[in-house]
């Protein structure tokens, strides 16, 4: 079986790659959002500290 055949998936390419593509995209998005939330939380803490100390 060639790579071209592999990507065609015997005519089921849309369904198979549509499933895996969206699933993987969603997982990657979740990781990005979770990392972003951590950065924001730490940033907020520093803002609070700086507001307190009056810097």
């Amino acid at each position: 079986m060639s790579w071209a055949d592999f990507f065609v998936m015997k005519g089921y390419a849309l369904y198979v790659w549509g499933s895996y593509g969206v699933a993987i995209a969603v997982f990657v998005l979740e990781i990005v959002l979770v990392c972003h939330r951590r950065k924001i939380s730490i940033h907020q803490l520093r803002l609070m500290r700086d507001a307190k100390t009056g810097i």
Partner: protein
Amino acid sequence: MTINWFKYSAPSSFYGLAGKLIPWFAWPAGVLFCVGLYIGFFVAPTDAVQSEAYRIIFIHVPASILSMIIYIVMAGYAALGLIFNTRLSSMMATALAPTGALLAFVSLWTGALWGKPTWGAWWVWDARLTSELILLFLYLGFISLQASIDDPRRADRAGALLAIVGSVNVPIIYFSVQWWNTLHQGSTIKLSGTSMHIAMQQAMFAMFMALWLYVIAVVLMRVRSIILERERNTQWVTELKEYQQ
């Protein structure tokens, strides 16, 4: 030797522990995901009836099972928080909800893409599909209910009630294919064994473990942010090194 089981129920000690544990779940998750994809696409044979379309099973079934397990775990943590008033349990419930919603979405999405070539329909109002859709709505309801209440302790309690009541839906999803005559096929893997090809079983198992470990890693990451947000006025947070810089 006495072990202090309650040590890590304090957000301050759990925060550090969670940070150390994340890579131990995240890396095996990534490796197993690649192994699962490799076996699923290059080792597992083509299905005699469904041809290549059946390969969706390796992502669909693990995502569906985990969407149900996460709900039970979330409702369990929420109940613990409600009964014992433990802050960390409620934070865990809040951290689990988005990942549960995401897996319920993946389950429905991959199910639609599998239904079209095999049944000829993206969606049918069948018992299995409808109860899984309700599961997604329960997750979204839990998230929006908590987001709509400003006081975190009240949000925890309101969310907990919704989560506990909604847990009735999980056995309904699981047994729906037996209780009702559904278009959705019955379970391929049962306690009594399975008729699946060995390579298909291996791919499914690897993907299931990969997603499970992924869920633990990502939920630990999220709960660490929730801990920081909720405990921002405590002494221990101001002593953290990420905050000192």
